């Protein structure tokens, strides 16, 4: 059971990581990056490291992604000009 969960979560994480690079819009990349971080938190949970997992969610998803989104949204969009 644990192995299946590990495979599913790591596959999703890798797919999200690829999508971060492949997607056209920066905001989409940021969303996929949030998915990668949540996947990493899931892997930490499987390793029974709850504290690290939730700190991962708090710091990376909560703070870093917000910072990235804020930065992207405050800068001019390139594709419209």
């Amino acid at each position, binding site marked *: *059971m*644990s192995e299946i969960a590990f495979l599913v979560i790591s596959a999703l994480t890798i797919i999200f990581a690829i999508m971060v690079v492949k997607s056209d*819009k920066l*905001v*989409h990349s940021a*969303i996929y990056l*949030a998915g990668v971080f949540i996947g990493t938190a899931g892997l930490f*949970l499987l390793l*029974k490291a*709850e*504290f690290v997992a*939730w*700190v991962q*969610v*708090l710091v990376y*998803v*909560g*703070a870093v*992604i*917000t910072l990235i*989104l*804020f930065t992207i*949204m405050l800068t001019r969009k390139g594709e419209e000009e």
Partner: protein
Amino acid sequence: MLYSGMWTGDTMTNAYELIINILTAIGVYDTIFGVFKSYGMEFVLKLIIVLVTLAVLFGFVLVTVMFLTWMERKVAAMVQSRYGPMVTGPRGLLQPVMDGIKLIGKEDIVPAKADRFVFNLAPYLAFVPAILVFVPLPFGESLIISDLRVGLLYIIAISALSPISILLAGWASNNKYTLLAAMRAVAQDISYTLPLALTAIAVVMLTGSLSTVDIVNAQSGTWFGIIPKWFIFLQPLAFILFLIASIAEMGRIPFDFQESESELIAGFFTEYSGMKFAMYFLAEYAHLFAVSGILVTIFLGGWNGPVLPGIPVVITSLVYFILKTYAVVFFAMWLRDTVPRIRIDQLLNIGWKIMIPLALLNLIVTGFLITAGVMR
């Protein structure tokens, strides 16, 4: 071997074990377990029980949200000396049902220039954390979905997800008012998460545990036989700061910059209609109830209360928790109808120049008193 007992403390039975205990008490658990075991699928039974607890939680949240919308209008009506909704059902109790039907029937409009993917994703990102926060919330003795060992950290981490949804919704709508509202809301959210976490840490220092159940258990009993051992009496400053910060987190008046109608139409969800609007509405009220529940858990003794003879603790504790939570919810609604909105610069000044220094001071004093042996 599905992870039962893996992420949880062992201080109290949770809802999963409660269901098994009830089934065993009725005398059907062994039969059901035997049926699943004969196919070699015990984990399916465990999954089903987990899904049942989650479904009960979901239903509870939905009903609570419907009741809260009714209560909000009724409290506003009481404050303003009018009746509020009276037509649908007894004293207007079925009004939320009608509202829900209306919202389901509405056309789902996506603005032409909106980023469709992000626009459709954002309501779910608001809704899912609002439900997830309920997982380590102790509704009563053994009425908890999962007693996480780091429950309080989990709650803070999940609450930190809400700015993302707000930002995405505000940006994807491709509307300057929604973007402005999102910027404001996130600035507010970020500056008020800090005092929220800092004041919660003071309680964690007193308890020595991040588990919500341990925090509630540490508040059982009384001083001198009269005063209950709630942390509000040990941490009055932390309680006030946490209350203000949580009202700001919820984005309610006097801190409702997410949707200040007079300036920003309706805030970051201006462009949403139909079910997506309903999901923001649901998330908002679920968040209101969850934050009130967290406040009760941390400072107001959780489900502790006088034990009544002859009634099971499960029921009395649930009643105490619900009563206390609704008292906090009522306070938030009362505040909404009483005070005007403050300005955004005042909001940030209060957050950074008053609340965070006070929270840090509270933390230092608490640490000093614990080290000196005065507290606990």
